[in-house]
C-alpha cells in the first residue's frame, strides 16, 4: 500500500472538562484508498479522534489535514467526509429512500434528481424494495446497509465508520465484514474504521493503528501488528499472548540471549525494542510447541520445561496451560488435525513437558 497521504493528523490533543485527556498528541497518516482501522479498548480516544475528523469536535491543539488542507475550522457540513454512526442514526421520520437522498439534496441536488440517485444507490446495495419503508420497519442488518448507502451516496473523500457492526449478531457481523471490505474495494473510497474488536481489525484493514489512553501505540499492517507487536499493550490487546519475565544477558548473531525466570536461556529475535535489562518475552500460544521430555534431545535450543496444569478442548484447537518452574504460565495451542471422533489429548494433566519456543516467534518487550 503505497498510496498518497489523504488525511494527516498532526499532534492532536483533546480533553473534556473534568476528564482525563482523551487524545494526548495523536499523529498519523491515512493514505488514499486505504482501509484504515483505529483499534483500541473503550475510552482509548478512537471515537473522539473520529469525531474530530468528522467535525463534531474541535481539537484543543494540533491539526487535521485533508489533501493538504487544514479542515479543523470547517463545520461538518462543509467537509467531504461522511459518517456511518454506531447506531446508524437513520432519520426515523423519513423513508429509506428519503434518508439516502438527504445528503444529496442538502448538497444542492434537485429533489427529484436526489431521489433518482438514491434509488440507484439502493438498487446496488440490494435495498431497492425497501425504499418506501421507514427505518423502524427494517431489521438491524438492513438498517446498517441503509446507513452505509446514505453515507456513500454523496461519494465522500473519506468514509468514517464508528463501530458500525457492534449492534449486529455474530453471524451477520461476519457477513457485513466481507461486504464492507468489498464495498471499499469497489468504491475506492478511503475508509477510517473504528472498532474495539481486534478480529474485525485484522480481517478488514490494510493498516491498523492501535490506540490506548489517548495515544497511538503502533501503526502497521495486520500481520505486523500481530506478529511484531511494538509493546506489551499491543501484544496483550491483539490476540492471546504469553508473557514470560526474563533478563537480557547478551547478544549474538543478531539474537538476544534472555535468561527466563525458570533458569532456561532462550534466543530472541532482536526487534526494535529493548537491548538490556529486565524484559518480558512474548510468544503467541500457537507458535509454541509441546514435546515429551524424551524426544527433545535433537532440538535442544529454546526449550523450557514445565508441567501441564490444565487442558482445554476448543474444537479446532486444544489449549494446554503449562506452569513453568518459576510459576509463570505458558499457554500452548495445538490444532487438532486428526478427525474421525478419535480425539485424545497428547498430554495428561500433571505430566512433565518441554515447550520449544521458536526464536523468530519470540519478542522481547519492555516489562
Amino acid at each position, binding site marked *: 500500500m503505497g498510496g498518497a497521504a489523504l488525511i494527516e493528523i498532526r499532534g492532536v490533543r483533546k480533553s473534556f472538562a473534568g476528564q482525563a485527556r482523551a487524545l494526548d498528541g495523536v499523529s498519523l497518516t491515512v493514505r488514499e484508498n486505504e482501509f484504515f482501522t483505529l483499534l483500541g479498548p473503550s475510552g482509548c480516544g478512537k471515537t473522539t479522534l473520529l469525531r474530530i475528523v468528522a467535525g463534531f469536535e474541535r481539537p484543543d491543539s494540533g491539526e487535521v489535514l485533508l489533501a493538504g488542507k487544514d479542515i479543523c475550522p470547517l463545520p461538518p457540513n462543509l467537509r467531504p467526509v461522511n459518517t456511518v454512526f454506531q447506531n446508524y442514526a437513520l432519520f426515523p*421520520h423519513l423513508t429509506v429512500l428519503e434518508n439516502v437522498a438527504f445528503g444529496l439534496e442538502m448538497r444542492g441536488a434537485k429533489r427529484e434528481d436526489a431521489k433518482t440517485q438514491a434509488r440507484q444507490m439502493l438498487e446496488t446495495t440490494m435495498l431497492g424494495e425497501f425504499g418506501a419503508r421507514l427505518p423502524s420497519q427494517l431489521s438491524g442488518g438492513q438498517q446498517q446497509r441503509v446507513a452505509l448507502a446514505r453515507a456513500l451516496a454523496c461519494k465522500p473523500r473519506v468514509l468514517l465508520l464508528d463501530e458500525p457492526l457492534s449492534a449486529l449478531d455474530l453471524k451477520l457481523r461476519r457477513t457485513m465484514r466481507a461486504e464492507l471490505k468489498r464495498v471499499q474495494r469497489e468504491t475506492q473510497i478511503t475508509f477510517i474504521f473504528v472498532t474495539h474488536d481486534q478480529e474485525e481489525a485484522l480481517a478488514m484493514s490494510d493498516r491498523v493503528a492501535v490506540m490506548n489512553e489517548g495515544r497511538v501505540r503502533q501503526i502497521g499492517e495486520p500481520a505486523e501488528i500481530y506478529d511484531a507487536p511494538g509493546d506489551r499493550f499491543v501484544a496483550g490487546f491483539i490476540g492471546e499472548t504469553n508473557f514470560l519475565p526474563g533478563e537480557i544477558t547478551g547478544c549474538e548473531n543478531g539474537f538476544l540471549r534472555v535468561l527466563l525466570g525458570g533458569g532456561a536461556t532462550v534466543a530472541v529475535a532482536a526487534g526494535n525494542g529493548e537491548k538490556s535489562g529486565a524484559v518480558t518475552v512474548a510468544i503467541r500460544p500457537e507458535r509454541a510447541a509441546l514435546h515429551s521430555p524424551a524426544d527433545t534431545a535433537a532440538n535442544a535450543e529454546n526449550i523450557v520445561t514445565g508441567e501441564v496444569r490444565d487442558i482445554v478442548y476448543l474444537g479446532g484447537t486444544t489449549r494446554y496451560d503449562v506452569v513453568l518452574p518459576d510459576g509463570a504460565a505458558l499457554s500452548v495451542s495445538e490444532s487438532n488435525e486428526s478427525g474421525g471422533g478419535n480425539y485424545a489429548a497428547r498430554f495428561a494433566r500433571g505430566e512433565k513437558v518441554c515447550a520449544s519456543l521458536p526464536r523468530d516467534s519470540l519478542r522481547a518487550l519492555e516489562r
Partner: protein
Amino acid sequence: MTESRFINFALPPWLSAGPAMAVLLFFLAAPLCIVAAYSLMEADPHGGVRAAFSSEAYVRFLFERDWDGNLALDGSYAAIFARSFLLAAAATALCLLAAFPAAYCIAGQPPERRGLLLLLITIPFWANLLVRTYCWVLILRDSGLANTWLSALGVIASPLPLMYTDGAILAGLAYSYLPFMALPIYAALEKTDWRLMEAARDLYAGWWQTLFRIAVPLARGGIAAGCIMVFIPSLGAFIAPDLLGGGRKLMIGSLIQLQFSSSRNWPFGSAAAFVLLAAVLLVLWLWLRRGGAQKAQW
C-alpha cells in the same frame, strides 16, 4: 395493551379505575353539568339564577332583542370570539417562535446543565399570574421601562402608546404561557437521539436545514401539545386582557368573567363558556383528524 397494570389485584376494571373516575366525576363532570344547567335558566337580577327554563342566554349570543321583543342579528359577541381566537393564535405562534429555539438549545446542553436551565424557565411560574401580568404594566406604560429606555437612547421623542393595545395583550399572553410551550417541546427533543442532528450536519445540512428538516419534525408531538396548552388558556384568559388591554376590547375570558361579576348574568356567562368549550373542541377535533393521519405513518 388495555390490560390493567395492577395485575395482582383481581378487581374488576370499573372498580380499579374508581379513584380516577371519582376525580373526573367531581371535578369535571359535575361542574360542567352545573354550568350547563345554569346556561338554560333565567337570570336573577341580583346575581345567581332562577329555577326556570330559558334559552334566552344562547339566543342573546347571536341576536339582540329590541324594545318590542323582536330579534335582530347582532355580531358583537361573535366578533369578541373571533378576536379572541386570533389573539390566542397569535400568542401561540409567538410562544412557538420563542420556545422552540430555547428548548432546542437546552436539549443540546450536557445533561447536568439542562436541569438548571429548565428551572430558570419555570421560575416565573412560582409568582402569581396577576403579579407577573402587572409587571408588564410597569414595562409598557407611558412612564414604564420600555418608553424610558427608548427615549433615553434617543429612539423616540414622546412615549409610544404601548399599553391598552392588542400588542400589549399579546405580549402578556405569550409571556404567561411560554413555559407551557417550552416544556413539552423540550420533552420531545430530549427524547430524540442527538446523533440525528449530527448525522444531518454530517450529510451537508446547515444549521437551519437541520432544524427544519430534522428537529422540528421529530418534535412534532411536543409542538402539538405545546400549542394546545398555550392556545386554550390564552383563549380563556382574562387577566392579561383586563390589565394590559384596559378591558375596553373584550376577550371571551373577560366577557365570561364579567357576566359572573358586575353584569350579574350567570346564564349568559355559562352559555358563553359552553359555546367557547364547543368551539375549542371543534378546533381540536379538526386538528387531530388532520394530524392523526400523518402520525399513523410512524
